[in-house]
């Protein structure tokens, strides 16, 4: 395994991905943690919300929530939360946005003293609407796009950023979060938002199976599904595994799985297929080979997803039947 720039200074050359795979990616994540408790998108970059959330979600299977690693990560996430309850992507200058669902999810997974942060975050999410339905949006639809994109604009999920449209991935993240909030603490709008968000995801499925970013049909041409939105949509809809659209999506994902050539897509697809009871073997070997290509471009989220894919199904994406079995 070749050593990359800087980042691998900590890594012993004899470390071999093929033997301790389950420990390899968690170790990389631990070593990449910043002194402030968070993670950047690559080692040595300043801490930002998304990679910190994924790292916590990956490491919580390997560490006690009271461990120094996770305690300092919790601290970072809590201090990054904005007054209104949302999280910015990073520096604190950005508006609260899509990463809020991931930050909340990470704090829930730790089952630590972050209940208030989670409630505020979930409340912000459930009160935050995308821009569809506002006056400007309706005007635009009437003027130009009605014949261009084919979707039900009455179904609103979540956008990537405030005052923009709903898209598949941020909607899926928000749904997974709200599904995981204990009933007692659920914001009052949560149930309605979950129902509408799920309908929106079904409406945005690509003809033939899977999801793309959120435009399944443009100028009458079917969109090509992509791995990441398909994975997160399927996970957000994991409790309806027999629904035709889920079945088509999972089958599309299974067929694509063998030919995947990047670690992020491979790990996410594996995780999703595991939830759907269709995971295949050889993940360790394939991830090892792919790591040798470009060292995952040093992507912390990709390392976190690889770590999760090599472990059991995390409780926050268990289907209802898996949850019952686990109990």
């Amino acid at each position: 395994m070749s050593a990359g720039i800087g980042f691998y200074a900590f890594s012993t050359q004899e470390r071999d991905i093929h033997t301790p795979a389950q420990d390899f990616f968690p170790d990389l994540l631990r070593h990449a943690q910043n002194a402030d408790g968070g993670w950047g998108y690559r080692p040595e970059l300043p801490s930002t919300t998304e990679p910190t959330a994924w790292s916590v979600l990956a490491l919580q299977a390997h560490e006690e929530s009271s461990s120094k690693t996770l305690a300092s990560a919790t601290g970072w996430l809590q201090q990054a939360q904005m007054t209104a309850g949302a999280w910015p992507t990073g520096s604190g200058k950005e508006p609260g946005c899509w990463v809020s669902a991931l930050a909340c999810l990470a704090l829930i997974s730790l089952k630590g003293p972050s209940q208030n942060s989670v409630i505020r975050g979930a409340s912000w999410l459930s009160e935050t609407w995308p821009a569809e339905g506002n006056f400007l949006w309706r005007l635009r639809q009437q003027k130009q796009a009605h014949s261009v994109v084919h979707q039900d604009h009455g179904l609103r999920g979540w956008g990537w950023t405030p005052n923009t449209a709903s898209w598949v991935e941020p909607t899926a993240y928000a749904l997974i979060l709200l599904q995981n909030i204990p009933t007692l603490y659920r914001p009052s709008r949560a149930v309605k938002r979950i129902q509408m968000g799920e309908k929106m995801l079904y409406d945005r499925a690509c003809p033939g199976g899977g999801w793309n970013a959120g435009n399944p049909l443009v100028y009458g041409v079917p969109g090509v599904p992509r791995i990441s939105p398909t994975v997160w949509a399927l996970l957000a809809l994991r409790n309806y595994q027999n629904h035709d659209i889920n079945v088509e999506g999972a089958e599309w994902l299974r067929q694509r799985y063998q030919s995947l050539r990047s670690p992020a897509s491979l790990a996410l697809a594996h995780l999703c297929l595991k939830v759907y009871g269709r995971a295949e073997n050889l993940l360790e070997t394939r991830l090892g080979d792919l790591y040798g290509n470009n060292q995952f471009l040093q992507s912390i989220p990709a390392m976190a997803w690889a770590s999760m894919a090599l472990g059991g199904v995390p409780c926050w994406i268990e289907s209802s039947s898996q949850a019952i079995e686990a109990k």
Partner: protein
Amino acid sequence: MSYSNTRLVPPFNRSPSAVAIRSVSNYAADVEAILWEMLQELRPPVRDKSVLLKPNFVEPDIEGMINTHPVVIRAAREAFLRLGAKSVIVAEGPGHERDTEGILEELRLRDYLGPLDRSFVDLNTDEVSQVGTRTRASRLKSLFLPKAVLAADFVVSMPKMKTHHWVGVTLALKNMFGIVPGSCYGWPKNVLHWAGISKSILDINSTVRPDFAIVDGIVGMEGNGPIQGTPKASGVLVAGDDPVAVDATCARIMGLVPERIDYLQRAALLLGNMSEERIEQLGETIANTSKPFEMLPAFQKIRA
């Protein structure tokens, strides 16, 4: 400098631009030699500078009509190094696909450039700085932009020659959408759509001025671009020191009238030359390389 201290020059006070056109039959041709000849004619001032190549990577495509071809990227890297560049990196923030490495591997970019953890920067997840926009055509008063771009001495926009179902064409100027990080703005970068695509193009290009452009028109896309169109073997490479002039030249090669393309009109006011009289044409002529592109009905009006 590509960022800061770059003056916006009105048309009456602007020197002419140089644009080179060369026919290239396919990607098996000696693209490296052809591009080297073009750059020798154009002589971009890159000695001892850090060069950032910004290709157009959108999502995997088996027909090679969506993304800038790796052959062209490697040829550009080699040429800039031969011209004395201190360093050359490739950087892109794909707009639809979060798995950047997946696109790079599907494109086989590693086969052309070597291991990518050393030579490629994912602009979607790079460290960002907040930067005020130099123009305020859109409602975007500032943008969070990647430090890799802001720190580069010389930025080269390397688009594919394609039609675009919202703005007509996507070339060197529109390609700069890819420097806006997905981590801050999402996949797609929907904020830019809501702010107005044409206006955002002007604001981004006035804030980070691409110093040079190389357009991969060897195989482009016509019809319902930039993703769902059909391949167009236009067999051409276009390069120049003024992205507006390069885009206007490409539009003419595509059988379009650049003056009818909204964002080019805006860019010609402040950023570069659009009129043929202000563009010194090197290499081959527009007439000899012109291959009109099929356009969606909404954009028939921009055809020549």
